[in-house]
């Protein structure tokens, strides 16, 4: 890691008093805007390596970039917001882990190289931010989706396939795929069409995870992402 990470870790150890002075470990000129746009002004915001964002350093296909977010090292996570600083629609996905572990894997579109970040809000109201840079030649957001180019999706729209795997360390992993074009509205002549909300529950109806494909406060702007099209969540057995 670079010098910024060392500074971030030191600031974290000193506590919330100087959190505002933290330097962005990803050194992105857009961080200030992101913080202002997505996180409450009064909230305590810290860079925290316990929020892991795993994505390839070089994404070969800007239409299909795999990203995994894992905030399970952090206690009492209430919600997680994922965003990419340099995407024309920066918001990607927001989820509330509910009865599940706060871990979610998905595929996104990237318009250009960008930090991809996850901000996890814990029960005390503070936001913990982790992230990674993804390099790509880009163009993913303004291209028609693969789905919109094929008549297939209209017949199979909403088709779901899924499977549950037991995890070695306990709990289970659910993988889920939904047939949906996930169009951003940024490709000429193709309106936005995306999954807005996805709720996972166990057989008894106990909620496991609530997932949103966009921010509710700005309902006209979808995340530039097929965020919910392929989901690999890590729900534990509901304990409460």
């Amino acid at each position, binding site marked *: 890691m670079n010098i910024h990470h060392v500074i971030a870790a030191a600031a974290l150890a000193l506590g919330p008093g100087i959190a505002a002075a933290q330097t962005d470990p990803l050194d992105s000129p857009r961080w200030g805007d992101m913080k202002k746009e997505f996180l409450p002004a009064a909230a305590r915001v810290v860079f925290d390596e316990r929020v892991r964002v795993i994505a390839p350093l070089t994404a070969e296909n800007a239409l299909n970039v795999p990203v995994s977010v894992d905030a399970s090292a952090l206690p009492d996570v209430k919600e997680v917001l994922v965003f990419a600083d340099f995407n024309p629609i920066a918001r990607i996905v927001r989820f509330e882990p509910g009865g599940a572990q706060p871990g979610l894997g998905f595929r996104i579109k990237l318009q250009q190289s960008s930090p991809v970040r996850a901000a996890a809000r814990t029960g005390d109201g503070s936001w913990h931010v982790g992230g990674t840079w993804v390099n790509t030649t880009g163009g993913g957001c303004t291209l028609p989706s693969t789905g919109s180019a094929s008549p297939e999706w209209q017949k199979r729209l909403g088709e779901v396939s899924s*499977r549950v795997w037991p995890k070695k360390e306990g709990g289970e992993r659910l993988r889920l795929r939904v047939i949906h074009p996930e169009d951003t509205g940024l490709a000429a002549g193709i309106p936005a069409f995306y999954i807005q909300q996805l709720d996972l529950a166990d057989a008894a109806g106990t909620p496991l995870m609530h997932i949103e494909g966009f921010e509710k406060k700005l309902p006209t702007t979808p995340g530039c992402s097929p965020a919910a099209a392929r989901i690999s969540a890590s729900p534990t057995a509901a304990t409460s």
Partner: protein
Amino acid sequence: MLTGRSEDFSFTNGGNIVNTAFIVTQAGVLVIDSGPSRAYGEQLRRAIARITRQPVVRVINTHHHPDHFLGNQAFAPDTLAALPGTIHGIHTEGGSFNDNMYRLAGDWMAGTEPVAPTLPLAAGPLELGGHRLELIALEGHTGADLAILDRSTGVLFAGDLIFHDRAPTTPHARLPAWQASLDTLEAQPFRHLVPGHGPVATDAGPIRQTRAWLGWLDHTLRQAADEGLDMTEALALPLPAEFRRLAVVDAEYRRSVGQLYPALEQQALRTGKARE
């Protein structure tokens, strides 16, 4: 034969990462693959002209990937030939390949436009100026892969079914079909083997090397999908030491995961048992 570098496309190499070849016969020159750009095709023509005064009478594209046909412009249109599947592929994907090559190789591509062959080839013997050639129609690297055996000299031109000391590319690959094609190639009576990428060999080493990589890739990604790994986890799997000697192996593994994993994970979801 003109040997390309064992690299990815770049502004530095201008796309010269591919092997092309030509056979001089009494009835003219047969060219096997025309390279990644108009400039490459024109250089290839000049290289041929330094060796023989025979005209180029036939240019064969082994398959429809950009580094194998984008030099077609340098040759007379009625000399261009390929398998029907390759011609179709150039028609449907040639334009986007060409755009992508400008992005990857920059100015080296100046003036390059895709030109599809008009002469469809069929599997079987082809006699040219005393050379007894065998056209072997295969598949697996793409939907139509042509290998050419020159029975007169014992040289087997394998196209991109064979990569030697360089990790194979898989954007249109179907691995089981590719493995079957490798068996067919290994059964040919060749003395020299010209791979699509990497150095010439005098034995089946490159065939076994390609087979080992494809076998490992197929097995590893199937197993990963069946164990429910996410794509980010599949990308992080370690590569066995034996493949470390392959050029650009990390980049090709990453690309192959992106190209092959989605279908395998979908298969794993479909075959998974429903839970109560």
